[in-house]
């Protein structure tokens, strides 16, 4: 409990670190926040061209990709940022006492700002390109729990990766290769919905696939924003369970080792 009141007491430090990161990222760039949009914009354009021209996808493909790509980007930025958040601030950790969770949390808050900016891109693509479902509807309310789950997943995995990177120096490489696998094991470029039925596809594959909480979350985002429907219970249910599990694990590991971080960092 004290860990949370500590974090609240140091909320101004959290905000200062966040604005520091935002400034550091954008200060030297004259186009400012445009850069936050450029990377996903380029990626969407390239993917759309490739998939529409060479893979024969329909004109709705940019919309299909963008609704999953932006949440996926948020997840990877949080994970890679949190992983080095303690080790990159070793002098601070060694010499000043403060609630250590401030460091990964400020990475997450920074990326929430980026997510906010990039959601403009999501809206723009959804307006400009056709979608199979009617998007404006009550199912949009699902975005609230979905965003909360995504955030919870990022906090849990972020805390876990931050603590592991402090102790084990190969954590970063493990994360890099895991992310490569995760990109294809999650429905970012393709739609996983309805792909699990049929000959040669046993029933246990679908629940196994959605054990990856990111897969369930991205599928749910796509159901809501692309198909104009509610998330499927299996995907959403397993994503919720996975998020709770990772959240509990991350919090447990982080706070168990937090008092000793200064002994490990260089």
């Amino acid at each position, binding site marked *: 409990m004290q860990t949370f009141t500590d974090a609240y007491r140091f909320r*101004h*430090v959290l905000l200062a670190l966040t604005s*520091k990161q935002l400034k550091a990222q954008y200060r030297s760039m004259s186009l400012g926040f445009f850069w936050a949009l450029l990377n996903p914009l380029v990626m969407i354009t390239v993917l759309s061209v490739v998939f529409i021209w060479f893979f024969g996808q329909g004109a709705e493909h940019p919309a299909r990709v963008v609704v999953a790509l932006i949440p996926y980007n948020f997840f990877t930025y949080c994970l890679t940022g949190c992983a080095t958040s303690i080790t990159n601030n070793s002098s601070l950790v060694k*010499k000043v*006492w*403060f609630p250590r969770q401030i460091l990964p949390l400020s990475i997450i808050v920074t990326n929430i700002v980026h997510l906010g900016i990039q959601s403009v891109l999501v809206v723009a693509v959804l307006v400009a390109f056709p979608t199979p479902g009617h998007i404006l509807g009550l199912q949009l309310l699902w975005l609230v729990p979905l965003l909360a789950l995504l955030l919870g997943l990022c906090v849990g995995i972020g805390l876990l990766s931050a603590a592991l990177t402090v102790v*084990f120096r*190969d954590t970063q490489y493990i994360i890099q290769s895991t992310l490569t696998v995760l990109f294809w094991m999650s429905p970012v470029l393709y739609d996983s919905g309805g792909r699990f039925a049929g000959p040669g596809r046993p029933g246990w594959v679908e629940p196994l696939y959605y054990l990856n909480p990111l897969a369930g979350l991205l599928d749910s985002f796509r159901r809501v924003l692309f198909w104009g429907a509610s998330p499927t219970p299996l995907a959403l249910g397993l994503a919720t369970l996975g998020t709770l599990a990772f959240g509990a694990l991350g919090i447990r590991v982080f706070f168990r080792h937090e008092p*000793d971080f200064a*002994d490990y960092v260089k």
Partner: protein
Amino acid sequence: MTLAIRLRDVSKSFRLRHRSPFLARELLRAVMQRPTRVEVFWALRHVSFEIRAGEAVGVIGHNGAGKSTLLSLVARTARPTEGELEVNGRVAAMLELGAGFHPDLTGYENIFLNGMLLGLSRREVAARLESIAAYADLGEFLDTPIHTYSTGMRARLGFAVVAHVDPDIIILDEVLGVGDAAFQDKCRATLTRFRAAGTTMFLVSHQPSNVRALCERVLWLDQGRLVADGPTEDVLARYREASQQLATRTAAARPAAGQSGTTPGS
């Protein structure tokens, strides 16, 4: 009198490792039930003492005696391996000059960051900003990023912030020897004012003159053990005697060899 700091049979060990371990290898070893053997170095061994509120206590000892480790425990950046540690009151620790500064932020921004890391709220820092700026006396440099500062300038800014925190307990590790003579006088005057105001002081210094001027009591650490605890002049005299004896003995035993005391953890 109330207790400010109490240590009861406190020990602190460090794992002697040249590099942090690999996660993959450790997992494999755990599965095969072959735990990694780690060498352990005891930086502090069975240290017990009490400091009453308002006392000013200096810590002396050779390099690697455990002085900095002791201070970092009281400052909470590390935790004891064994024993009990109790610290009552708001602690302002300066384990290193300029710790908690971010090189890319300006002097003013760093005043906020550092002040908040030392436990002030944003509003409290804002209220003291002018006074801190006047104390640091860095003029227009406060608007430029800290990486343009000299070591001395950084020290001035760091101490200026600490001088405005109004802590119950102030912890200083070897920070008085920096800056020009005028600034050192200013620091000493501030610390004398703190003492008069009833602030508990706990400091490491290699200069006996500083210890003599500020502390009424001295702890002498040698190889992690507390060898003396008493009035300043008594302990300083015994320490001087022991150092001279050691110097004569070393000179007699190894006339040609240089001093090579590399002990980790200092």
